[in-house]
């Protein structure tokens, strides 16, 4: 297995507050890796460091064999690293199709983009129904699907998903996780941040547990799913 993403001892500051204290993790090609933890543990911050929205204070990030620690966010997208932002990160004034088109902003191969658009609409039939509707008028679940679909339009090597199940009804959560598995089976590596540990661990090949800006545990999905401490803290069972 080749390593696609490697984070080494990354720290990140918000002003004077240290949000990440030397985090290290790896994502191998073809995997689904989950990052779980409570509110404020630093999950989304880790994502921002990887996608380049926030600069890191120290440490290194390597992607596909290249050091990208200091690379601008938009250039990371061109290298094949794309994030679906958390929550309402879609463009509210653009239609569904325009949003998806923005996902392919860095690409010039229009014919291939057309094929990928068909694939995404196939994956999310709801988006196909609402293609002319403005993003801001979609329901929470539809917006979430749009964010994931839009990220796929960049044809990423590594897809970063920030809380894809946030605010969704249980039925929809099941559905979105099935789609994530499907995307992965079609060949996209996925790094997933989740509060819904149960679902995330069940679907992930490997996982990391994040607490107050530090990684406290790692293992395969099923190992962590059966770990007593994880069970107690994140799965709500003693």
């Amino acid at each position, binding site marked *: 297995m080749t390593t696609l993403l490697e984070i080494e001892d990354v720290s990140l500051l918000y002003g004077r507050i240290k949000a990440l204290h030397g985090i290290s993790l790896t994502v191998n090609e073809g995997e689904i890796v989950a990052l779980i933890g409570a509110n404020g543990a630093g999950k989304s911050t880790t994502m921002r460091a990887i996608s380049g929205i926030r600069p890191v204070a120290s440490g290194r990030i390597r992607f596909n064999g290249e050091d990208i620690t200091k690379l601008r966010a938009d250039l990371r997208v061109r290298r094949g690293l794309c994030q679906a932002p958390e929550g309402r990160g879609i463009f509210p004034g653009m239609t569904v199709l325009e949003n998806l088109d*923005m996902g392919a*902003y860095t690409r010039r191969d229009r014919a291939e983009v057309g094929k990928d658009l068909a694939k995404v609409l196939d994956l999310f039939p709801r988006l196909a129904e609402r293609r002319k509707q403005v993003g*801001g008028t979609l329901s929470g679940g539809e917006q979430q699907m749009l964010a994931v679909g839009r990220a796929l339009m960049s044809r990423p090597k590594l897809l970063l998903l920030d809380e894809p199940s946030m605010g969704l009804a249980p039925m929809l959560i099941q559905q979105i996780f099935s789609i994530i598995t499907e995307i992965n089976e079609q060949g996209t590596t996925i790094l997933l941040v989740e509060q819904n540990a149960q679902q995330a661990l069940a679907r992930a090949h490997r996982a990391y547990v994040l607490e107050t800006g530090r990684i406290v545990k790692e293992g395969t999905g099923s190992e962590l799913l059966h770990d007593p401490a994880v069970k107690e803290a994140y799965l709500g069972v003693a």
Partner: protein
Amino acid sequence: MTSVREWIDSGRHAVAERWHNAPRWMRWAVIAAVIVFFYALPNREFYQWLGPIPTTGSNFGQVLFTVSIYVLLAVGLNIVVGFAGLLDLGYFGFFAVGAYTVAVLTSPSSDLKTLWPWLLALPVALVLTMVSGVMLGTPTLRLRGDYLAIVTLGFAEMIRVAATASDFLKGQRGFNQIPHPPGSYSDGKPIFGVLDPRPYYWLVLTLIILVVIGVRNLNRSRVGRAWISIREDEDAAQLMGVPTFKFKLWAFASGAFIGGLAGALFAGKQNFVSSQNLELLNSIIILAAVILGGSGNIVGAIVGGGLVAYLIERFRGIEFFGVELYEYRFMFFGLVLVVMMIFRPQGLIPNRRRAAEFKDRRKEVIVGG
């Protein structure tokens, strides 16, 4: 109140629908008729039939020139505020850079004594305003929202203070005898002069048409899509691979270019530039015009700029119970803006997207609260 709004809205929707369903040739015919109307407007033979529209207190051709300059400025500021969503409170600073560059290079009162013709100074003025836009943008466009607004406000004030205090820029005494643009009639008389403001108005009108065509094409290109994405969600734009800083700088520079063009035209027309032309209020008026018209919509910016500049001039010479309305023009103006913010924050002729963004933001406030 709501019923009046609904009535207005339904009327507007009916007009919009008609417009979109009209055949192509009919739309072009309407646009052509509007353009012909505005070319004909400064002629007395034409405007004497227009009832109360021509101004009473001042020369109508002169007023139309002023209005056209404001329209040009509103179209330029609309790129920055409307398309890219950057709040620029010092846009008039670029107008000043354009006007002063022309003045310094052409006027006999300038220390440089270069005495260039107007046309030679124009490209220099345009390049310098763009450079000043990039210089101002490079450090400040890393800031967002309120911070950017404050810094741009400071920029315009810096230029005003520099113009007032520096010997080189002549303060209130200013630069005189700035030359007119070239061109003469068949009988040898120059086209552009002090006596007849109409050729200047026609020149600016023509430039507005060219600028609007250019801006429209830009807005429909990849550049335009990048601007919209930055305005709607800057983080998300970055995550989609849009080099946000570069495009914000682009918006700033294009806006500055148009501001500088307006300044250069103004300097030629007035023959005179001094620090008294550089009131802070001008930046606010242009911003208000863009917001009033409908930020993000080119037609909205034109209507806003035209309406605001025209109304200010229209108040001149009208007495109401012994007070001249002109003295109270900014009070009316403030009132209109407050009413607009309450009832129609998206502007008179809003942009479809902007309207959706407003709704979206309102939703966010409710969720957050």
